[in-house]
C-alpha cells in the first residue's frame, strides 16, 4: 500500500510543504475559474437563480469520492492513512448553521474569500478581515463551553457506510445517484428562477454523469477489502518480520518503554477475560480479538505521535493474530510481547510465593501459572518498577513517525 506517500520522511519538510503549496495553487486556481471569487455568484445559490455552488461542490465531492474509493478498493491507496474528519455531531450542526448565516450575510466561505481577496475584490478583503476576527473570538470564548465543544455528540472517526452498516460501494453508488438527482433538480430550478435555457447546456454532461456512475458501480464490484485481504497484500514482508523476530519485544524492553515518559505505551491484552482477571500487566486493557476490529478507528482518530502498541497473550499465538490485524489496518508501532504473560512472570516473578508454575499440557498459548486469587494487576510482578530492573535486551522498537495527517484544514 504505497499511497498516500509518507512525504515528510520521503522528501523532507520543505519539499512536503512545497507539495501542499502546489495543491493549494490548484485549489485557488479552480475556485477562481469557477467564479467563486465573485460573491454575487455564490449568493445566487440561495435564491435558486444560479446553482453553481452546489454543482461545483457536489461535482468535486463525488469525483474525488469515486476516485478515492476505487484506488482504496484496488489496494493502491490506504484508507486508514487518510484524514477522515472525526464526527462531533452537535458542534458540527450548530457551527454549520452559524456558518450558513455567515455565508448568506457575507457572501463567501473562507476559501472563496481568499480567492476574492487575491483578485482584488474589496468585499473579499472585508470578509477575510471579518473571518480573522471571528476566528479570534472563537479562540477567546471556546473555554466557556469547552466540554460541550469537545464531547457533545462525539462519535470519533466514523463514516456513513460504517454508520449504516453498508458496504462502501453501496453508499458510493447511492451518493452519486443523489448528486445526479440534485444536478438535475438544480438545472430545473435555474430554468424556473433564473430563466436559464437548458437546451444550451453542453451535452458532454450526460457523458460525465454516465462516467461517474460506471466508476461508482466499479467501486461496488470491487467490494470492500477485509482485514484478511489487507494482510494478504503485505503478508510477505510481515511474515518475514515475524520469523526474524523483529517485532517481538522482550519483557525488559516493554518495561523500559513503559518507564519512558516520552512514549505512550498501550498494552492490549487479547486473552479471555477470566485469565485477564487472574493476572494482567498494570495498565493493560483487555480486548478480545473480535473487538480489536472495532477499536481500530479509535486508534486512527488519535493524534499522538509517539504511541506504541504492544499486544499480549499467554504465549504469542493470539498476540500474533492480533498483531496481524493491527498491521493490516496500518496501525503504526505495533509489537508483540515476547513469550507473553508466561515469559513476563518468569522474568519478574521470582519473588512471588503465591504464583505457582503449573504447565498445562493443553495448547501452546495457555497460562502456565496458577494464582491463589484473581487479583488482576495487584500482584507485585504485574507492576515492576522500571528503575529497579536493569535488564539487558536488544532494542527492537523503531519508532515510526506517524504521517502528517492532522485536523484536516481545520487543526
Amino acid at each position: 500500500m504505497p499511497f498516500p506517500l509518507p512525504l515528510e520522511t520521503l522528501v523532507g519538510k520543505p519539499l512536503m510543504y512545497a507539495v501542499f503549496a502546489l495543491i493549494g495553487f490548484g485549489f485557488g486556481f479552480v475556485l477562481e475559474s469557477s467564479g467563486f471569487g465573485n460573491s454575487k455568484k455564490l449568493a445566487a445559490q440561495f435564491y435558486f437563480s444560479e446553482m453553481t455552488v452546489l454543482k461545483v461542490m457536489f461535482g468535486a465531492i463525488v469525483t474525488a469520492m469515486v476516485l478515492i474509493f476505487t484506488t482504496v478498493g484496488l489496494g493502491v491507496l490506504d484508507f486508514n492513512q487518510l484524514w477522515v474528519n472525526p464526527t462531533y455531531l452537535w458542534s458540527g450542526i450548530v457551527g454549520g448553521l452559524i456558518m450558513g448565516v455567515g455565508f448568506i450575510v457575507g457572501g463567501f466561505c473562507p476559501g472563496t474569500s481568499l480567492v476574492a481577496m487575491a483578485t482584488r475584490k474589496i468585499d473579499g478583503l472585508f470578509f477575510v478581515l471579518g473571518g480573522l476576527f471571528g476566528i479570534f473570538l472563537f479562540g477567546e470564548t471556546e473555554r466557556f463551553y469547552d466540554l460541550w465543544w469537545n464531547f457533545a455528540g462525539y462519535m470519533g472517526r466514523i463514516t456513513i457506510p460504517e454508520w449504516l452498516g453498508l458496504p462502501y460501494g453501496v453508499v458510493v453508488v447511492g451518493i452519486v445517484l443523489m448528486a445526479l438527482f440534485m444536478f438535475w433538480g438544480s438545472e430545473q430550478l435555474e430554468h424556473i428562477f433564473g430563466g436559464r435555457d437548458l437546451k444550451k447546456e453542453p451535452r458532454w454532461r450526460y457523458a460525465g454523469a454516465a462516467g461517474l456512475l460506471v466508476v461508482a458501480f466499479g467501486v461496488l464490484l470491487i467490494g470492500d477489502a477485509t482485514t484478511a485481504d489487507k494482510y494478504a497484500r503485505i503478508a510477505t514482508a510481515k511474515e518475514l518480520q515475524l520469523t526474524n523476530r523483529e517485532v517481538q519485544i522482550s519483557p525488559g524492553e516493554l518495561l523500559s518503554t513503559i518507564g519512558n515518559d516520552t512514549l505512550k505505551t498501550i498494552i492490549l491484552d487479547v486473552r479471555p477475560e477470566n485469565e485477564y482477571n487472574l493476572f494482567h500487566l498494570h495498565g493493560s486493557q483487555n480486548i478480545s480479538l473480535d473487538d480489536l476490529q472495532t477499536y481500530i478507528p479509535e486508534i486512527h482518530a488519535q493524534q499522538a505521535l509517539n504511541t506504541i502498541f504492544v499486544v499480549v497473550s499467554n504465549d504469542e499465538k493470539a498476540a500474533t493474530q492480533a498483531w496481524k490485524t493491527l498491521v493490516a489496518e496500518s496501525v503504526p508501532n505495533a509489537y508483540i510481547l515476547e513469550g507473553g504473560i508466561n515469559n513476563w512472570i518468569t522474568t519478574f516473578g521470582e519473588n512471588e510465593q503465591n504464583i505457582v508454575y503449573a504447565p498445562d499440557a493443553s495448547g501452546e498459548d495457555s497460562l502456565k501459572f496458577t494464582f491463589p486469587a484473581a487479583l488482576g494487576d495487584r500482584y507485585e510482578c504485574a507492576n515492576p518498577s522500571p528503575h529497579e530492573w536493569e535488564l539487558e535486551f536488544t532494542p527492537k522498537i523503531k519508532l515510526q513517525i506517524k504521517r502528517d495527517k492532522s485536523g484536516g484544514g481545520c487543526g
Partner: protein
Amino acid sequence: MTAATNTVSKPKGRNWRATLFERPKKDYWHPYLGGLLLGLVLFASFFLTGNGLGASGGLNRLVVYVEDLVAPAHIDRVPYLLKMAGGDKNPLDDWIIPMIFGTLVGGFVSGWRNGRLQVETNKGPNITKRTRWVTAFIGGAIMGYGARMARGCTSGQALSGGAVLSLGSWVFMFSVFAGAYALAYFVRKLWL
C-alpha cells in the same frame, strides 16, 4: 487614463500594470467542469498526502501566530490555543499554511489569466458599497466563528470530509445549506 497613454508610448509587454490588470475578461468555467477539476485537486491531495483541502484552519493559525507575538503568556493559559502555539511551538509550522498561500497565488493567477483582477465590490443592486463592506465583515466574522466551532469550513469539512464519507462532515454540510437557506429570504435585500 494614464494607463492608456502608457500603452501607446511603450511596447505592450513591458507595461506590467497593463499586462496584469487589463487582460481581456473571459467567462467562468462551466460549473460541472469546475467540479470535475476541483474533485481532481481534492483527490490528488488525499492520494499524495493523506490530507484534504483547507482554508479556515490556516487563517486560524495566522490569528494564533499574531496572538502569540502579542501575548505569549495568554496563549499558555488557554488550552485551545496552547495546542497550536504553546511553549516554543510555531503555529505556522503546519501544512495548511503553505496551502493557503498556494490558494492565494492560484486564485491570483487564474484571475490574471482571465482578466478578472479589477478592483471592485460585488454586491446586490440595492445596497451601497459601504453597506456591502460592513455586511461582508460581519458575515466573515460569523463565518469564522462558526467554522472554528464546526472544526472546519466548506473546504476542510464539507469537501474533504464529504469525499471520504465522514458522517459528521455530511451532517455539517446540510447544516450549512439549511442555515443559509433559512435566512436567505430575510436578507434578500442584500443580494436581489
